[in-house]
């Protein structure tokens, strides 16, 4: 009986879990934690359509000759039912009970800050007449990666917001103001960062702290760091994680 009920409603319950979660994230402006903004409308519209169909399907009496059950030996059926219940329960906890969350700084370390030169190069902003005030971490990182334009920004002042990750080549004196760049969904998030020279930064700003940094680009005073240009900050302040933590 239990296995029969589960087989019939498992899919619909899972659908509703995904739908309620999606619509709630959309309504509270948190879809950006998981997917690129270009999918917001499509995702919410399909969720609403799916929701209407799923609820309507509840009203549908099963056809008398419906083949719902898996053709399983009686022995395996108990495990199958248990697995199905666990899947529904785990999905409910993950989608509805846990608070939405961003990727941790630990995954930024695993993915190598600024390893994605090409994606930065493609989107590199033009420097002449640009509004530097509007530059994001991604824009500055792209400028720093391109040998042609990097030289021309020495002395340029910049304000950046992101979380702190260490520069592996000089972890005591240099850190990155880091953001994840998302092209499709959080799975493809790549960390990009702007290096900041601040000896002893760990004491005030532990890894993963969100900071606002203001300062000017200068030749890196650190001799061991592999970064050529860094921001030498005039102010560095801790700040709240912004509502949209990723850049797109």
């Amino acid at each position: 009986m239990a296995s029969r009920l589960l087989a019939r409603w498992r899919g619909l319950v899972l659908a509703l879990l995904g739908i309620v979660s999606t619509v709630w994230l959309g309504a509270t402006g948190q879809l950006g934690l998981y997917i690129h903004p270009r999918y917001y409308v499509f995702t919410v519209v399909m969720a609403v359509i799916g929701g209407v169909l799923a609820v309507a399907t509840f009203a549908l009496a099963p056809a008398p000759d419906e083949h719902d059950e898996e053709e399983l030996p009686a022995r395996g059926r108990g495990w199958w039912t248990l697995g199905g219940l666990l899947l529904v329960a785990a999905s409910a906890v993950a989608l509805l009970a846990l608070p939405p969350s961003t990727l941790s700084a630990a995954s930024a370390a695993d993915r190598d800050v600024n390893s994605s030169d090409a994606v930065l190069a493609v989107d590199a902003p033009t420097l002449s007449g640009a509004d530097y005030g509007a530059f994001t971490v991604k824009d500055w990182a792209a400028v720093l990666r391109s040998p042609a334009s990097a030289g021309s920004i020495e002395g340029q002042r910049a304000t950046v917001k992101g979380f702190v990750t260490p520069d592996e080549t000089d972890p005591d004196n240099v850190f990155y103001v880091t953001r994840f760049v998302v092209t499709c969904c959080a799975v493809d998030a790549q960390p990009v960062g702007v290096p900041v020279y601040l000896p002893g930064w760990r004491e005030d700003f532990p890894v993963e702290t969100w900071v606002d940094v203001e300062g000017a680009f200068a030749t890196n005073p650190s001799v061991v760091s592999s970064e050529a240009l860094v921001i030498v900050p005039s102010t560095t302040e801790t700040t709240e994680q912004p509502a949209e933590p990723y850049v797109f």
Partner: protein
Amino acid sequence: MVLREPDVAPRPSTSRPRLLRPGPLVAGLALVAVLVTVRLLAPADEQVIAADAARDAITLAISVLIESLPFVFLGILLAIVVQLWVPERVILRLLPRTPWLRRATVSVLGVVLPVCECGNVPLARGLMVKGLTVGESMTFLAAAPILNPVTIITTYQAFGWEDGILVARIAGGFAIANLLGWVFSRHPSPSELLTTRFQRTCAYEAHSDEHGGRMTRALGLFARETSAMLPALFVGAAIAGLIQVVVSRDLLVTLGSNPLWSVLALMALAFVIAICSNVDAFFILAFGSTFLPGAIVAFLVFGAIIDVKMLSLLRTTFSTRTLAQLTALVALCALALGLGVNLLG
């Protein structure tokens, strides 16, 4: 996969038609209300799960799920439309009769039915119920994610004509899809390639013309397809999330500059990361400087057809043995294609 007699006279229904009942509808609405309440009352504290790795695995799994779910719904809707509203002759009669020409035509169906690869699985199931053979459906599943306008445009935006990546992806995808269709069409008893559950679905559908009105039948199909596809999608997303945390990206990326290892490494990455073919070009562009062009082509071709999430979805329809053969064949072809591009380039 059932070949039906054309234009059979409507058969009088022997079983009771489905009824719409208010009781379960109220229960369904109540369930939605409960789910919404739980979501609204859940604590907003980020640190419920302390371990970074566990939290990341959940975040990544949810991200794969929320990204794929709308495409799966779209695929199910298209499959329902194809099954209930499109007359048979429009789809199946318009296809050429010569098998290889027919498969070649099926492989460009993605241009007119552009769903992402996860949406293609329910659509392919619908097409098989309508009478497409197993081999042809394989061709469709392999070709549609690559030979569709969105994928071609994003791949062009990412790579242009550089290193022949775009051309190799399109031509390679087409060739592999048709090879797959041909190989699996040689099977003496193609229905054995399918799961027993899906075989039964096909047999059942062939005799279900007269179960109530179209809307009722559409809802019945929706219930059946969600109960088949969604558990697979949820499990696939969970595995994809977990595996990201376990497998080190650094390791795969360091293998990048060797002509052989870079191809294998990027195929492994494609299998693990399970992102949509529509956007995978942008993703791999991030590694463009690290990997050889052949490796990128192998990533773009292999990943569009096979990955952890897709295997989980395909398992609803094809037997494990079939999927093992399918994976091996696609992997070998993608490897050969990648090595070829590296050697010629």
